């Protein structure tokens, strides 16, 4: 087991930030920690890294107890924090070299590692730039390079795509998958469910300091009753439409909001054809119509009763 956390409790005065938090991350995984802001993701990461004191619980990394002076463990960890952690007075190259130098003392070896890190995040054209001259996306890439240059076995990324443009976001997500393919175990925290769905092999959903569900994305989606969600662009709301559709077999809910009729059906029921037939028979004009499978947001909604982005 790369990371094993048991019954971790962390309090900030009266607030329980982590409430008997359990976590197991296996070697080679891209493990996603998904939860809304304030759910305790960063606190959990800081406790795992021995930056924060905690009230109860056990933390093991690489099957050894984690501690601030566990240097043999720390040597194999790379961290990319939510806040960009670079020095404004050092260039791109110097920043990566400085942080890599805290792990690797051999100058020649370090030079090679820094070059590889710069290639990895595609910052070759910006080596001599100071961080203040970089765009938000490039800065995030520099932040990642500083965390991975020493080739760690475990890489923890805490919301690395906050305030990043789509192009840089894709670049970062592809990079994470590449690092995983090269053998690194990844822990990825985010409140963006699309990202987590895209790259994580296993996901834990957090709320109020607790893990409320763990599994692959398909396992998580199979935990809920909803199987299909059909959205119909409808420009006139007629009350009887809602009640008529509600009568179709397997339909669990029908809602109309912002010119959009949303119909949810139980798992195992495919009602798209039935809906189309109903609209045609009743000569109801409609715009676009599409069907989608449940998302992690639906999973979160069904378990907690609130949206993931609340």
């Amino acid at each position, binding site marked *: 087991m790369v990371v094993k956390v048991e019954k971790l409790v962390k309090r900030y005065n009266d607030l329980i930030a982590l409430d008997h938090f359990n976590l197991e991350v296996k070697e080679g995984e891209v493990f996603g920690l998904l939860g809304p802001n304030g759910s305790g993701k960063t606190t959990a990461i800081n406790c795992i890294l021995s930056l924060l004191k905690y009230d109860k619980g056990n933390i093991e990394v690489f099957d050894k107890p984690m501690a*601030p002076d566990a240097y043999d463990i720390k040597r194999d960890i790379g961290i990319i924090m939510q806040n960009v952690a670079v020095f404004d007075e050092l260039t791109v190259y110097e920043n990566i070299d400085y942080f890599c130098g805290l792990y690797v003392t051999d100058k020649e070896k370090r030079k090679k590692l820094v070059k590889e890190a710069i290639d990895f995040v595609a910052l070759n054209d910006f080596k001599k730039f100071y961080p203040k001259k970089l765009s938000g996306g490039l800065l995030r890439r520099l932040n990642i390079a500083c965390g991975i240059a020493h080739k760690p076995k475990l890489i923890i990324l805490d919301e690395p795509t906050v305030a990043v443009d789509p192009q840089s976001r894709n670049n970062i997500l592809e990079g994470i998958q590449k690092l995983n393919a090269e053998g690194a175990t990844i822990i990825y925290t985010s409140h963006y469910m699309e990202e987590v769905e895209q790259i994580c092999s296993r996901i834990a959903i957090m709320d109020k300091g607790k893990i409320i569900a763990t599994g692959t994305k398909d396992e998580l989606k199979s935990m809920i009753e909803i199987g299909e969600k059909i959205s119909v662009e409808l420009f006139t709301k007629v009350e009887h439409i809602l009640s008529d559709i509600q009568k179709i077999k397997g339909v669990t809910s029908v809602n109309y909001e912002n010119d959009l009729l949303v119909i949810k059906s139980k798992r195992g029921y495919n009602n798209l054809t039935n809906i189309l037939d109903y609209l045609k028979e009743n000569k109801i004009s409609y715009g676009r119509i599409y069907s989608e499978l449940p998302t992690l947001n639906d999973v979160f909604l069904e378990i907690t009763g609130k949206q993931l982005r609340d």
Partner: protein
Amino acid sequence: MFLHIFLNRLKCLIRDKQVMFWTLMFPILLATMFKMAIPDVVNLEKFEPIDIAVINNVEYQNNIAFNSALSSVSSKESSSDLMFNTKIVNEEEAKELLKNNKISGYIILNDGPKIVVKESGFKQTILKQFINEYLQVTSQYHNILESNPASIQNFISELGSSESYIKEVSSNNDAPNSSVSYYYALIAMTCLYGAMHGMKEVLSVQANQSPQGARVSLAPTNKLKVFASSILAATVIQILIILILLTYLRFALNLDFGNQIGYIILTAVCGSLVGVSFGAMVGSIIKGKEGLKISIIVSFTMLFSFLSGMMWLDIKYIIANKVPILSYINPANVISDAFYALYYYDTYTRFFTNIGVLCVFSIIFYLITFFIMRRQKYASI
């Protein structure tokens, strides 16, 4: 590893424009402004002979005693060693000179000396004091002559042999110049501005102070070793800054610090240690943004510098007399006093006492910093 961190921290400190302005450029600008302003201050402190006139009438010509007394404190040409620049004129001329502010007052002998002035002030008070003293001595002389003529000889000899209880001493073969005290306070302020470097180094290694500090704390390196390397870089930069300032004062502004360069550098080094350690302590104790810490450092440094006489020299002496303990716990005052002791004293007791106090300050500041920084986990980040 140590060298790697040291060199990179040197780069960071040198390239930090805001901190370099406050620690190097600001003192240089201030010193240049002092140079332009302080000669006038010195002139104010120097006594200039007072221009007066005496009416050339019969009584004046016959009063040998007054003539003699006046000529002993007057000169016909301007001279800083004497009290009055005296002109012998007629009454009309005297009135004209007074009207045109060419003289502070004039003396007319008409049944004894009388003074005519246009306004009251410092110079007029001196003139009046001189006349009072003359009248007092002549009155005593006449009294003795009338009551006991035999003792007049003793009185005259006592007048002639009045003993001075003030002795002028040399100061390291250099002429004393009170204006250097302002520069001592300025150097002390610059030493204390080293606090900004110390504060920045704490920020760079403390996980609860900055994201960079968190990243450093996660590295497989003892945090205190990283800090030792960083703080050494800060100290080296600060000492270089002080040496640049001293060079500028000595060679660009032609300021004479005496001929004890080794001791001057020792003071600058000890002052820099105090400054850097003070900043490290502030950085570790105060939670908050860098701007807040800089504000606290600048405020304390300016307060310390003011109390050591950088803006108003008299405050230093007022505090030394009224609240002497404040003189000893104000690092800026201790640094400036070390320079002062070097400049004005032939012995080194006071100088080394100040150096000792500075070392104690530095040790205390570093101990407090160490006790706060040795924590490896935080309650919150």
